[in-house]
């Protein structure tokens, strides 16, 4: 079902109005969306019950200081009988679907809402924008130049149209930047839109052309990115240069939405180095650097989740040493995902690829 | 509509066909195909030893006797030798042949048996013609160096070995006789050829005529006794 909503308001307001209606009409018990705190314009995921407070929500703000999928997973860690509308970027939706496969959350109580995503800015860039604009959301969607200023992963993202959501907020092709077209992607979504009482309509006229335009641009960016990244890890020696400045702060895995471990293996006893080994090695070589397992960390993290990488780019954004972690990850995961024929976030029913045992080989 | 041939009567062929001591007392055929696989003429004009066995086991004697199947067989015995169930296949086929009216026996065999009984050889060759041919061949041999003293021993009483002949060797391929004789001569063998009833091929075997077969065998036994011989050479 496709519904044109509040075409008199500008788009972010229309979206806010939509979310309010969900609460007002009791279509959802709560809404989880981005909210600018009194302390900073940076949007933070917030669980809202009071529809009045939604005036201060910034669901379309082109920034994400953290991947909201992880926060959403906390709220959705079990079904407590409340329906929660969750507004997420497509990459975050993908992450959430992967997390459900890992029993980290349940999507049964969730109404998944996502938008055609033009990307997010790095935090400092967004703060700049917020400092100069009263309504950074509207400014972003009205200014194509600003849309080019998103982070590298977003510029190279080819999956910016939501998949597996209940309601899609169509932003591409909204030429006058007024209102929002809502598209249901499931029975659950269709029910919501029906109750909303809108009349069924068509997708915005210019939407496909807009998508194609963005896609073409992003494909170019992506090629550049993967070529560049491939060169940075062409062999182990080059790769050592690439990660030479890694501080082992593990920010990248903290930020990663699919790196789901409660406690990373790299902080467990598995990597506690035995003094016997260190001493033995020192005796042999004359000197030995106390190991930090830096290379091990990056390779292992890839081995653990490259097949599930959703390409959100958070890892790069949080790196204090400006290592293009996401570029590397996205480039590697492209190959690994192709190898397994596995696309994260695409099919909620599909198990993690290495759990699948080809039945003809499973002779018992 | 006609339902298939009755196969529930007992077979007289099966009952009367003689069995060797090694043969199985119960006619057990699993139609495994060993006989058919080994038979040199399986498939020719629909011949298949297994089929014959199955026919008699089903009591379809008449059908078998009426067909030309029994006559296609060469009685070589490969089938019987390998039969894992010890079925007397050759004996069965001979018995079937014996049940055919004599005038329905294929011409040459029938004629051969008749002539054999009447004249002592399957060709019906008169005795004088026979001795002429034999002596002529013997003379030819004595012309060769080393065989100057060779003579064909006919009806030689007290020799060691009786030499019966395949009629073909007498009629058309008598140069083969020379090879035999050369060997006998060099080996200083004491042997003889009977002037009458010299036939070494018992077509009673092939026609399924046990009486005739017996007659032919008796004749040879008679030679052995009359000429006081101790050893028999049988060319078939």
């Amino acid at each position, binding site marked *: 079902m496709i519904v044109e909503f509040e075409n008199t308001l500008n788009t972010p307001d229309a979206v806010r109005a939509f979310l309010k209606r969900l609460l007002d009409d009791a279509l959802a018990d709560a809404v989880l969306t981005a909210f600018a705190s009194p302390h900073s314009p940076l949007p933070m995921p917030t669980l809202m019950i009071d529809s009045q407070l939604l005036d201060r929500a910034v669901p379309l703000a082109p920034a994400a200081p953290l991947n909201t999928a992880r926060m959403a997973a906390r709220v959705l860690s079990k079904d407590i009988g409340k329906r929660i509308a969750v507004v997420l970027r497509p990459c975050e939706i993908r992450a959430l679907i992967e997390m459900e496969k890992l029993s980290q959350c349940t999507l049964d109580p969730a109404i998944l809402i996502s938008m055609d995503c033009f990307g997010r800015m790095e935090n400092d860039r967004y703060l700049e924008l917020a400092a100069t604009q009263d309504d950074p959301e509207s400014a972003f969607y009205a200014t194509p130049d600003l849309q080019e200023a998103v982070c590298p992963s977003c510029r190279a993202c080819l999956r910016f149209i939501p998949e597996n959501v209940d309601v899609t907020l169509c932003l591409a092709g909204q030429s006058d930047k007024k209102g929002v077209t809502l598209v249901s992607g499931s029975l659950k979504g269709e029910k919501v839109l029906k109750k909303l009482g809108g009349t069924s309509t068509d997708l915005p006229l210019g939407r496909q052309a807009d998508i194609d335009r963005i896609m073409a641009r992003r494909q170019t960016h992506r090629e550049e990115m993967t070529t560049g990244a491939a060169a940075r890890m062409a062999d182990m020696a080059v790769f050592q240069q690439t990660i030479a400045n890694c501080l082992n702060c593990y920010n990248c895995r903290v930020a990663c939405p699919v790196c789901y471990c409660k406690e990373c293996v790299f902080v467990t006893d598995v990597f506690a180095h035995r003094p016997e080994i260190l001493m033995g090695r020192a005796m042999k070589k004359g000197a030995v650097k106390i190991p930090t397992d830096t290379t091990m960390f990056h390779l292992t993290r890839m081995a653990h989740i490259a097949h599930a990488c959703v390409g959100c780019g958070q890892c790069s954004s949080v790196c204090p040493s400006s290592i293009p972690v996401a570029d590397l990850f996205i480039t590697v995961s492209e190959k690994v995902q192709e190898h397994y024929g596995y696309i994260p976030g695409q099919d909620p029913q599909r198990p993690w690829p290495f759990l699948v045992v080809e039945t003809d080989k499973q002779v018992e | 509509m006609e339902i298939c041939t009755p196969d529930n009567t007992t077979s007289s062929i099966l009952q009367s066909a003689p069995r060797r001591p090694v043969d199985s007392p119960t006619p*057990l055929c699993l139609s495994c195909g060993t006989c058919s696989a080994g038979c040199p003429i399986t498939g020719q004009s629909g011949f298949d030893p297994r089929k014959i066995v199955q026919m008699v086991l089903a009591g379809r004697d008449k059908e078998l006797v009426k067909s030309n199947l029994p006559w296609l067989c060469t009685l070589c015995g490969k089938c019987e030798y390998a039969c894992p169930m010890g079925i007397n296949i050759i004996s069965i086929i001979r018995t079937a042949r014996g049940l055919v009216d004599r005038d329905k026996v294929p011409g040459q065999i029938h004629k051969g048996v008749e002539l054999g009984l009447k004249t002592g050889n399957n060709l019906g060759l008169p005795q004088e013609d026979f001795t002429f041919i034999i002596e002529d061949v013997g003379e030819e041999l004595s012309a060769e160096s080393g065989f100057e003293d060779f003579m064909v021993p006919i009806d030689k009483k007290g020799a060691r070995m009786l030499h019966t002949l395949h009629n073909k060797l007498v009629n058309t391929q008598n140069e083969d006789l020379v090879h035999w004789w050369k060997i006998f001569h060099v080996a200083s063998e004491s042997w003889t050829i009977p002037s009458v009833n010299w036939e070494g091929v018992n077509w009673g075997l092939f026609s399924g005529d046990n009486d005739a077969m017996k007659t032919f065998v008796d004749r040879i036994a008679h030679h052995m006794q009359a000429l006081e011989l101790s050893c028999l050479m049988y060319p078939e």
Partner: protein
Amino acid sequence: MEKTKSQFLVLGAGVGGICSAIDLAETGYSVTLVEKGPRTGGIMPQLDHQFPDDHCGMCRMLPMVDREPGAQTCLKRGLSHPNIRILTHTTLTDLSGNPGDYTAVLTSVSRGVDALRCTRCMACIDVCPVSVLDAFNDRAGDRNAIYQPFFGNPEALPTIDWDNCTRCGECAQACPNSAIDLERVELTESVAPVSGVIVAGGNPLYDPAVTDLYGYGVLPNVVTATAFERILSGSGPFRGQPVRPSDGHPIRRVAWIQCVGSRNVMIGAGHCSSTCCMFAVKEALLAKKTLGSDTDTTIFYMDMRTYGRDSQRYRDRAEEESGVRFIRCRIHSVDPADDPGDLKLTYLDDLGQPGEATFDMVVLSTGAGVQKELPPLLADKTDQGAVVTIGPEAGLQDIRETVLRAHGAVSSLLEKLNMDSRAKTIPKTGRAGDKSVNRFMQQPVIQVLVLDNGVVKAPQVEWPAIEGRLERSPGNIFVNRLSIIDGKDLSLELETVLKETRGNRLLVVSNHIAGYRATLTKRFEEAGFSAPLVEWVDLNRNDVSMGTETIQPDAAMKPIQVALMRLLHKRPSRGMAQVVENSALVIGAGPAGLSAAVSLAEQGVVVHLVEKEISIGGNGPRIQDEHQRRPIDQLIVRAKGHPNISIHTGATLGALSGRPGHFEGWVVKENMEIPLSFGAAIIATGGTPAITEAYGMGKHPPLVSHFDFEKKVLDPRFAEDTLNTVVMIQCAGSREEPRNYCSRTCCVKALDNALRVRQLFPHARIVIFYRDIMTYGKSEELYAKARTRRIRFIPFNKSKPPVVRTEGDTVVVDGFDPVMGEAVHLKADWVSLAVGMVPKPIHDLCRLLEVPVTPDGFVHEADAKWRPVDTINPGVFVCGLAKGPLRADEAVAEGTAAALRALRLLNRTELAPQRHSAVVRHAICSRCYLCVDSCPYGARFVEPVLGQVEVDPVACQGCGTCASVCPNSATVMGENEDFTVMNVIEAALM
């Protein structure tokens, strides 16, 4: 007699012998496994693959619940279990005394090679001038008179073949260490008291040299099936690069001739050897795999006896997917073809047309040979009940049947001796002696024992250099060198070291001590160093010495460092043991279930027998043949009267929880819920005749199932009617998808019925349409009998079945007889269809018991060959029709086998968790449950309140799949924790 001293003899160390030895050992008894030959394993080491799945998996026979005492290694290679003593080169020469208290005399023949002195340099083999055909390769290769009997000789000791040894002395001269004694010595020992004897002598294979038709022994490219398997094998005479024996040409075309030495009354072998058909199919597939998929593989057969549950599909896959050709014709003879080495076969095809084909090799599918008679000293004791044989009366058996028979033999032996299953000799290994526990619980301190064997031929080791490095290694390491040159007794020196050491872990470094290992292990145990606390490094091994003269210290240190690292991670304790309930739940009271229940009850186990129907007996009471029914009637009586058995009829299992050794469940009966607790469960839910619509079944009254026809024939009124024609059609609705398995029982039933009809109506026409007559083993005799009773057998292909139609009121069957080459049209008074058997619906039950179900609805056993009555759940067993079609007598036998398997679990008072088993570290676990999904044994479950993952330490087999899917090592494996392995890898690459 004291039970703790109960010991048994098992004669023959083939599949059956090994299986029954493990069974007895696991049930708590000591076993002496006596083998006449030089090695264990029977035919198994000769075969790399076995039907019906082309896989081995022999190791799956090893204990599941108390794994550590049993050898955790390949069973083809050998077996070590603290309760089992293996004697090769040994025979039983006397057995006296009374049942349960025999005295046995065993006579061993010396190997001619001293295990302690021998350095395994094999110089003796190199110089031996004698060459004999190698029986191991079934004459497809040679060996010397002194040789290594391949597998089953883990010590790799050469052995003298006394029959062929010429005593020339070359080997003794070549031996650098004077290890060879050319005098054959017989040693005799007396073993007493022996409670019972299991005779597992195996079946000799037919020797095709007896027949001149196939050219065996004359044409080098004609071989037996075993020899062909050896030719293909990587360890065979061609080392995995098989070529035609006559000339080394590639093997492109292979034919199999079936029934060589079987189904042949002329050689006194009227039986079917049961296994050869499947063996041939397997070999054809193996040939395709080894020689290339385009290899021409043709099997010439009489009936393809694919009577196992999985066999028909296996055969179909071979034909349809792999292109194996099947031709129904017994081959007359093998002739040399025009090209030298080629072999020519003539045959008749399925349509009766003659054909001829040329092959590179012809394989003779040899069946069972002449069964050795039991020696009188055993034969006269079999009826005493304490000497039991494994199935020689049944002839050649496949692995599955052999394993079942071994279980059954052990079960009946114990039952007859009426032994309390709770024997007290269950070994408690892996635990250090009490007084030294504290020391071993401390931080690892490593005592290195350098054992210098001083051998001549082995590479020399610079011991001082190695000792120096060890001493300089960081950590608490102490080094002592002991010299054991020339087998010198080292007890004093060793004792001193072991007594005085501060070490609590042992590292043994040597250049060759294989011969001493058993003795040393015992010494170490006595000193408190249980096996897990000891690591061994033998430097005289390829991966270190590479055939060099001297072992460099650098090379030597590689394995030493790995072993040191492992020792640093070793822990002595294994955690808490769990209590075992000495009771069992048997579900289903048919022949299999009754048999299992009675067998268990006889051995002191409390049995809850649950039956869905209102009466017990299952299909048993419906068996018409009194001879077959009587044993089941007897079981019914025994079960009803047994104090250890409580019977719940009209009842089902309602709920279940717990773990192997201790389950709790509810039995639901007429709205009542009866709580039960038990240690093991046996599924024996049985089966029923299949419903089919094949041939218009159900539409015409004269069309009946062979079960119904049997009833009619047995009805006295049947004989009063007239009867002209009976037609039977086999495999109705079965042996093709979706029910593509053979029900095993229908052919025999059809033959029985046909013979009964023949008796009543000497002149009736009886015609049986069949695909393959499945009269395996002795039942072949019944087939032979029917063949002599003027019953007409017409083979058909599944693509061209006979057609049943009606003409007015008459039913007519149209078919084609390829043997007679004629169409047949039969007006039938009765058409009896062999409808086959299907299992009772068991999906719900199996879900409760966490046991998988096959696509056909049978219970999926743990392993079709090696664990035929086990399921993947170590506390749940299965027998009878629930797991595959079989006859009632076979169901009874399976019931006994399942009972024995359950006993192996129930005989314990407690179950100790295993060293190699998984542990969850809840604090860092993210509850993703990947481990739960990946566990192949269902040994993990989610605790419902907190969602924590729990491991059933009994069900867990220690495979570590869980640990490898866990990204943050929240699941770790005992002995192979991630941190251990990471350190070991570091040490290995240092």
